[in-house]
């Protein structure tokens, strides 16, 4: 028996109950972020600067604000994805993901910030731009468009501003409550804070679902006030979860490369993260197809018009790129067990997922530049593409800058969560 008890990989008899050595400072604190955050800030300044410059020098204001809004909505989705996973992990009392939760929280606290960024264009359009991108804000349409007048009870400036503030308040409360409990638990080790977080997540999930859906109606769908889709809220949520889990991989893998989170985030955790990436690849495809399919089938003009402009003038290639790149490619790659267990392979897939996620936002927002009632020359996807690229890289730079600062200011895992040992010992038995 003695030789059995001292066996190194004793999975049956003994668990190593002490994880103290894993919680050493060098493993759970990221300190080298100063130069990285400067780099991100530089990218943000250059990218967003180029976007603003293009408004006055090259492609015009409408294209510039569309690119900016597309990038902002893409980044907001990533932060909302972080909020969703934090909420759902508290709700499910998930044990395996404790060592990942802090990074979801870091994304989550940036959701209100990104909402402010994503509110710049609509507020500009409301007060200065006279509805150039958000057509319902145009005073001419408000006066003489019969469709808009039917929707004026919802689509009117004051209620719109109230809703934006409501989203900001709800997301701020959820973010600061949940990250606050988590940070306080780091210091006090009070296990009852987990229960409080769970309670907050219960109503928070409902509030999150409603606010995310309505925010996507307000910030994306209302650009073309003639169009409506009841799937829209779920569609944007699917994008949020899809990009949020990809963002997590792109935070955690570099941290592992930098020698952090050793034995805290292992192949077992990446395996489950890979499963979630797979899940939301399929979920997005399901939602995207369901939305398209019903509109295609029922053939109601005010709905089909939205897809019609996105299936011509070169946009049909983006349409099929999304079908292949947002579903088939990640689906087939993530089927493989080896991919899900390899951090490097997952990071490559995550980068692809973010690329295709922004292509999705591009597909939603950019055709609005030509979907005026009085449009003249159609704008193809590739015309002035550098403005869109500058906006996306600039916005990712901004998000990256905020994220790096946040990640370096807090411990990389919830240090004293009661389920931490469960997470460290997490193992997939299949």
């Amino acid at each position: 028996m003695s030789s059995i008890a001292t066996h190194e990989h004793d999975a049956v008899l003994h668990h190593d109950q002490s994880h103290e050595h894993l919680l050493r400072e060098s493993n759970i604190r990221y300190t080298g972020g100063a130069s990285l955050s400067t780099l991100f800030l530089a990218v943000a300044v250059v990218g967003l600067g180029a976007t603003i410059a293009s408004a006055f020098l090259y492609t015009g204001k409408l294209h510039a604000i569309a690119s900016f809004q597309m990038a902002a909505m893409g980044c907001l989705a990533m932060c909302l994805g972080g909020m969703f996973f934090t909420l759902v992990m508290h709700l499910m009392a998930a044990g395996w993901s404790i060592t990942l939760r802090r990074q979801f929280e870091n994304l989550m606290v940036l959701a209100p910030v990104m909402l402010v960024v994503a509110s710049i264009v609509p507020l500009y359009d409301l007060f200065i731009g006279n509805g150039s991108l958000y057509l319902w804000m145009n005073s001419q349409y408000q006066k003489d468009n019969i469709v808009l007048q039917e929707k004026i009870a919802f689509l009117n400036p004051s209620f719109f501003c109230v809703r934006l503030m409501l989203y900001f308040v709800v997301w701020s409360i959820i973010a600061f409550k949940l990250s606050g409990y988590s940070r306080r638990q780091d210091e006090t080790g009070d296990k009852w804070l987990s229960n409080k977080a769970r309670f907050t997540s219960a109503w928070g999930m409902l509030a999150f679902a409603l606010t995310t859906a309505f925010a996507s109606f307000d910030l994306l769908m209302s650009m073309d006030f003639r169009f409506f889709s009841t799937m829209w809220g779920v569609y944007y949520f699917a994008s949020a979860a899809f990009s949020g889990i990809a963002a997590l991989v792109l935070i955690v893998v570099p941290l592992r490369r930098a020698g952090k989170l050793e034995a805290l985030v292992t192949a077992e955790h990446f395996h489950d993260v890979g499963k979630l990436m797979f899940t939301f690849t399929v979920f997005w495809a399901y939602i995207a197809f369901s939305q398209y399919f019903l509109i295609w089938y029922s053939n109601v003009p005010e709905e089909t018009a939205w897809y019609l402009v996105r299936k011509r003038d070169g946009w049909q290639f983006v349409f099929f790129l999304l079908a292949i790149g947002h579903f088939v490619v990640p689906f087939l790659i993530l089927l493989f067990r080896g991919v899900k267990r390899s951090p490097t392979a997952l990071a490559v897939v995550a980068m692809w997922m973010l690329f295709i996620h922004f292509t999705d936002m591009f597909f939603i927002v950019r055709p609005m530049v030509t979907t005026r009632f009085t449009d003249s020359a159609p704008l193809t996807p590739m015309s002035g593409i550098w403005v869109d690229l500058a906006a996306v890289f600039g916005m990712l730079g901004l998000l990256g800058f905020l994220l790096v600062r946040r990640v370096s200011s807090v411990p990389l895992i919830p240090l004293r969560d009661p389920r931490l040992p469960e997470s460290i010992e997490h193992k997939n038995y299949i």
Partner: protein
Amino acid sequence: MAKQRKVYVTESGENVYGVIAEFATAADVYHAAEKVRDAGYSQWDVYAPFPIHGIDEAMGQKRTKLPLACAAIGLTGAGLGFLMQYWMSGVDYQLVVQGKPYGPWEPFVPITFELGILFTAFSALICMLAFNGLPRHNHPLLSKERFLAVSDDTLAICIESADDKFDPDQTRAMLERLGGRNIDLVEGD
């Protein structure tokens, strides 16, 4: 020419199926499995009334090829489903429905998906049974009275005579060394 396998026969003329040994705890059988694996045996199994986490690693079992079979058959099913619909409504019997074009891909997606799932589900079940050599009517181990307790409170390892490394005396001695109890020969094919 394939290597001729030795056939062991008991004194009463029955073929030897293998040697079985009982173990007291999950930990014992787990560590014994590691040793049997390291000794290079391949035709053997561990029997337990409950799942033992990590036992497949301790036994050195390779991952199953079942997912590959499911993927191949499932994708075939999805492709056939699509082709079937395209042929029916796009080629063989064209009908104008709601002014839609002939053979559009959109309405084919749900049934393509369903047939993909159907083929995958059936291939998973049927290939799993086939890979496991099921269904079968009887098993030599079932003739052992003591073996029946592995569905209740006993853990056992049985090394089969089909194994190249099998040797009645040495295999028995090894199981004894590993702490096996009630070691016995199993008769049958």
